[in-house]
């Protein structure tokens, strides 16, 4: 997509806080990003980095209390979703924004037929009658590669395997032709061969339907295969953002660099141990006043303890458009490509 076109989704300064008995947890801190039409944005980060919470905040899927959205804007086609009431949000969810969750084994309701669950959003958002909805449901199941779809409408989730259920989840998310599909680790709970099938399916559907996709994962290999652009999250913040090739070739943030090092090499001599990033992700009690990654960072210096780094562009474009990073330290110029992957 051309840079000039208005993004379908534009998130500005999003803050989400969980109020717990033990105090507040600042799960999402000033997160800004945008999603262009037809683009696939990969969101990477380890568990607890705020990836899922960010995406669920967008369409009000977090239970409140304890979650509370403290600020920011979520502009979907120019309309701020955070200003909508419950009813307004319900009209967005499932219609404009589709959501696929991590665990297909538990994400479908076990006591209703797949057809019933698939037809619900069709009847609610598109106002289809029973027959029309059933026909559309059959189309959708065929679209996600489930054979003998008409008979399968009467099947229950327990009669399907994990991969098949995830296909159904995707069909549900796509039911009303959403502008944005948010996939929250959709392949994490699946074994590798099924994972590959689902990835292929998404690539194919993207070509057919042309919707924009946000793909949350902690698997950099998956991201390399499908994403146009990557956003790396850590401690509830965006720490680096770049087009996918740029990010893999020229990682800037020490966290991104460490993440890339943890990918085990398939070829070459076998390493003794898998690489890990030492330490634990931070507990986000309180608004950040210092770099969240400092405790685990090998380039830490005084400023990191005093000041939470703002995102800065490193390629002369505005922040969010090209390659930007939130770090006080400047990475050395990229080494030749072959070495960069193992830097």
């Amino acid at each position, binding site marked *: 997509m051309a840079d000039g076109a208005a993004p379908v989704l534009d998130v500005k300064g999003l803050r989400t806080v969980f109020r717990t008995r033990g105090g507040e947890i600042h799960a999402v801190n000033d997160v800004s990003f945008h999603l262009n039409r037809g683009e696939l944005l990969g969101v990477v980060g380890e568990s607890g980095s705020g990836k899922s919470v960010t995406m669920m905040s967008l*369409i009000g*899927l977090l239970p409140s209390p304890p979650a509370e959205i403290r600020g920011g804007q979520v502009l979907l086609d120019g309309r701020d979703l955070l200003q909508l009431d*419950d*009813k307004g*949000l*319900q*009209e*967005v*969810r*499932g*219609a404009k924004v*589709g*959501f696929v*969750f991590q*665990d297909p084994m*538990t*994400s*479908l*309701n*076990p*006591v*209703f*037929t797949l057809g019933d669950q698939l037809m*619900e*959003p069709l009847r*609610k*958002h598109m106002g289809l009658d029973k027959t029309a909805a059933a026909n559309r449901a059959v189309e959708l199941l065929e679209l996600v590669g489930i054979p003998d779809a008409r008979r399968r409408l009467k099947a*229950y989730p*327990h009669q399907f395997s994990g991969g098949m259920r995830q296909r159904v*989840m995707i069909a*549900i*998310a796509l*039911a009303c032709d959403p502008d944005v599909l948010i996939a929250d680790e959709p392949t994490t709970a699946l074994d590798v061969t099924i994972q590959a099938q689902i990835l292929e399916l998404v690539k194919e559907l993207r070509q057919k339907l042309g919707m924009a996709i946000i793909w949350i994962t902690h698997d950099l290999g998956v991201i390399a295969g499908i994403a146009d652009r990557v956003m790396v999250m850590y401690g509830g913040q965006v720490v680096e953002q770049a087009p996918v090739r740029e990010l893999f070739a020229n990682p800037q943030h020490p966290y991104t660099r460490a993440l890339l090092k943890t990918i085990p090499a398939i070829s070459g001599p076998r390493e003794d141990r898998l690489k890990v990033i030492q330490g634990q992700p931070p507990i986000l009690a309180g608004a950040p006043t210092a770099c969240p990654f400092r405790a685990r960072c090998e380039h830490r210096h005084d400023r990191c303890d005093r000041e939470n780094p703002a995102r800065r562009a490193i390629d002369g474009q505005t922040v969010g458009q090209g390659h930007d990073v939130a770090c006080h330290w400047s990475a050395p110029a990229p080494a030749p490509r072959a070495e960069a992957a193992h830097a």
Partner: protein
Amino acid sequence: MLTYTLRRLLVAIPTLLLISLVIFLLVDLAPGSPASEIPLTVPPEVKAKMIEAMGINEPVHIRYLLWLKQFFWTEPLYAIDAAFGTNYADGAPRIISYSSKVPVMDYIGERLPQTLIVIGTAYVVAILIALPIGIYSAYRQYSWFDQVGTFVSMVGYSVPTFFTGLLAIIIFTTWLGWFPSIYNTSLEVVDWETFKQQVRQMFLPVAVLALFNAAELSRYTRSAMLENLSQDYARTARAKGLSERTVVLKHVLRNSMIPVITVITLGLPAVFAGAIVTEQVFKINGIGAALIGAIHVNDLPVVQTIAFITAILIVLFNLVADILYGILDPRIRYD
């Protein structure tokens, strides 16, 4: 499902036979004999004849088989005769109450309506108030509504009905005089006035029993709902843009019904056993009172029959519960 139901019905037969044997033997082994109820003024030879006529000098297995025959063959024939005016039974000996000398089934038939009306109403009222309370408490967990509901449930469930019953009588009958404390069994509802009277005399026992049952049921509903509200599929339903009403009352409720159905169906036989204590407190002349009375006077046929009918109901409602599970949850369809 049909195969499953039939299979379960067939399995129920040996179960019930075994239960009937146990009940028969237990009652038989219990101390006291119906013969001891015969006044001492009766001459010994007359007494011997009476004992022979009652059949209590026969060996135990003969008596058991005769009782089985009466229960499963003779009594149904009489029931058919009564319903269609036929004469299949042809004067065969029925199960007769020792103390009142009337057929036990007729006796139960007289008592049953009181129990069904009062205790049954209480049960229905309990379900009708417990489900909404449990659902809303879970949906608004830790809200003031939930806190109050939890407290009332705890009190309602932990205080026995003979206490709440007496308390209600003191407050509403003795002090306020709003409701009668004694249930008038002979009242017949013929017009508006008697209907009001009936409602008034039912109010206290129904309220006391409903509070007790609703307390238990609302707790089960609440915990089942809580467990399911946090499930992934509830989030999926919300992500589809469904209204909270649909999410909670369709997706979550259906999944939460299994433990609730268990409590409701397995509690139902208790309705027939008559919530014995409550019947005593409010002097309701129902099945529970009949059972207590029969135990006091060693009226073995009545005790056996009521106990066995209760056993049949328990087995039956177990089956009903299992069938309902299958309807509610496709994973529990057994064929």
